[in-house]
């Protein structure tokens, strides 16, 4: 939990600064199925623990339902299912990252949240051009942080691209 609190504090600070420049190249990283992913921090509004999710009928399988975020009804997506990775029971490290893109608030369920990282553009390589795996269209680039590689996600595709790979 302490990670989460710290991150939320980071987010708050970012908000206070109100300066887009300082948010650039900053990524929130999280773990999913042992891989580390990153999303641009400017889309993230907050990080919360797993909550009671109310099912909504007739939804794609990766839309788990809706949660009540202080009186707001927000849909949540299981990113594992979105990537076609096997489902896993939620535990106390499971987090919902609430992101806001184009006035839409959506919660993303991830295994756990790691940290906020600076990944300058020079350290970002284009996504690999392998056709394998349906999740490749969600990738914006590969961020190198020292020895390790973080998969940087295209948040827009993640949320709004329903054309392919949907059941």
């Amino acid at each position: 939990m302490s990670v989460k609190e710290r991150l939320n504090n980071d987010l708050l600070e970012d908000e206070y600064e109100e300066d887009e420049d300082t948010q650039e190249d900053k990524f929130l990283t999280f773990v999913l199925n042992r891989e580390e992913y990153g999303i641009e921090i400017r889309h993230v509004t907050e990080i919360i623990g797993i909550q009671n999710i109310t099912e909504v009928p007739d939804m794609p399988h990766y839309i788990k339902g809706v949660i009540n975020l202080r009186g707001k009804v927000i849909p949540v997506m299981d990113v594992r299912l979105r990537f076609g990775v096997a489902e896993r029971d939620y535990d106390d490290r499971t987090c919902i990252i609430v992101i806001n893109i184009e006035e839409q608030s959506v919660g993303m369920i991830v295994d756990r949240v790691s940290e906020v990282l600076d990944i300058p553009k020079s350290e970002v390589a284009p996504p690999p051009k392998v056709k394998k795996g349906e999740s490749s269209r969600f990738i914006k680039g590969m961020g190198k942080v020292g020895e390790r590689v973080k998969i940087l996600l295209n948040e827009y595709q993640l949320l709004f691209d329903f054309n392919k790979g949907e059941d």
Partner: protein
Amino acid sequence: MATIAYGDFEEKLELVKCFLNDSREMLDAVEPQIIAMEEKALTVGEIDEAILNAIFRLFHSLKGSASFLDLQTIISVTHEAETLLEIFRSGRAVIKPAHVDLLIRTTDYIRNILDVVEQQLSDEGYEESAGEIIADFKKTIVNVLEDQEQAADGQLAPRLPEEKTAAEAAAAAEAIENMPGANCGDPGIEITPEILKHFVEESNELLDEAESTLLALEKAPGDQESAIAACRAFHSLKGNAGFLGYSGIEEISRCGENLLGQIKEQKKDCDPVDVSFLLIAIDIIREGVRQVEAGSAPELPGKQEVCAYLEKLTAGTAAGGAQKEKNGGEKGGKAVKETAAANGQENIAAGEAEYEAREKQTGAGGQQAIRIDLDKLDKLLDLVGELVISEAMVANNPDLKGLQLDRFEKAVLQLDKITRDIQEVAMSMRMIPLSGTFRKMKRLVRDLAHKAGKKVSLNITGEETEVDKTIIEQISDPLVHLIRNAVDHGLESVDERLAAGKPETGLVTLEAKHSAGEVWIIVEDDGRGLDREKIIKKGIERGLISSENREMKDEEVWKMIFEPGFSTTEIISSISGRGVGMDVVKRNIEKLRGKIDVRSRPGAGAMFAVRIPLTLAIIEGMVVKVGANRYTIPINSIKESLQPRAGQITRTPGGLEIVSIRGELLPVIRLHHLYQVKTECLDLEEGILIVVENDEKKCCLFVDEVIGQQQIVIKGLSSYLGRVQGISGCAILGDGDISMILDINDLIINAGEVKR
């Protein structure tokens, strides 16, 4: 041009905004006045001076505020309108439909200019456009003045709109001679047999009304409404009689009105003596009207006595009122015997002045008002929604389970009451009377009637009914369509109407009222009604129904007219016939969670009743449990709930389950199947069946158990999820969980298609 003395841009913006608001309000007010004036001029042949003055004033104010902003277009146009009105005002000419058209065109033009001003903060570039209207005004004014001169050559009085034959004129002249008070009436108005006929008709109606309301008043002496209605009837009688110079009738009516005025103002209790004398007055007037009808001057036997009595009764109250006596009726009556008649007269005059002052006050919207930013109101309403949720969260908090909490419960009850009150007040702040919307319909009907060449009168009731602002915004279009249909399709042409033995003027009624948490807006016409055969034929053609279905219920037939593109008219007129209208009506009304009922009788007319729930944001809901999920069913669609016995259930070979309830066979929708929820409760006899109804169609919803009833704040499902079948939104429950609100309409429609 159009440079504004105020340098500061902000200030100017504010100024223009104010100007636009005020001007639009003025235009909204002036249009119905113009139409009312035309109606009166055409039917009674009278120019209502009060209305004329009101119109004049409005144009004048418009001119004034426009000149403040130096909007030359509006100034010049309103100036011409004033000039024309001035001619009418001085009684030198009569109003013709062409003049009214011109005035209305002027208001339209000003509206356009206002739009322009809103865009660019000035009327620059539109100076030319005013020229046309001004030219028309100039021409009209010249014509009017010429007409008037001709009229002055021929006769003393200006002409009335109707062209009269010599015989009629002679008859009218004779009528004038017969009238005792002719010369003290409005000078220069000639009385035609037309007018006499109208007078007689209207007077009889008014007398009937006065009589019935008086009788009601006698039964319920405190009934303000009856008193007001009766007073109004006497007032109208007085006006009409005065206009035609029947001073006798005028006098009796005035006495009656004065007395009723006192009763109305509750300065006097209404006792049987009052009513008897008023009824006698009515009888005398009735006799007088009969004589007028027969062509002779009204003699009015017994007039003096009745007037004297009525005056005494009235004066008695006035005197009593001055002494602040509660039962002034009796005591004042005695006092009157001593008081001189002249004294009483003074009191009446004083009372009348006060009465008029009060009328004026209410007319100008006596209550105080402030303007509030709509955003703030919406925010308030949102917060109230949150409050309702939080209240439920506190009251049903799981931590309290199993505790004995008498005082807490009491406090919660109090909190609940206050929350509901706040909610009601917050809602009512967004409530606006329908009168603005209805007023626009007057204009619409007038225009439509002109276009279609029909005679139509629009009867509006309940325009003071208040509804939520959202409803006002959404209801206008459907109403336009419904009224358009009523005038264009519903009402027959004049010839057809006469052939069918109906009055040549068609009647369209527009009514609004509150009823059981709903607002009803009813559009009714007395035309030909819906053509069942034609609609069925068209329905078969369009493949909406199969040809065997000819025996279907009326309601089902009428429902087809709401299908997109459905139209039975062969000819598409400029007004309607493309089959878009009713589709729009239905969609807009559904947006407001409303319904529309159709009734029709061939040859007698059709009625469309729009029913919209008063509150859009908060409803009473029944929360039910299915597996781990909880769903909310709007309480107004629930008929009953029951635990069925085995004998009530039938399974069809197709797997459909049917429950027989008091002889009615209803299909069962298993919510756990529909929403694929895991539940232990699979046996119909173990769970609960909830009978829901929409549009007179019913079905049963099978749930595990009923949790309870509560106020539900409706929240939209995130637009990210799009529209979900069978779900109309969601609600946040007391424990913070979310519950889906079932869309009963959707469920019932799809009931037949549910598998298994």
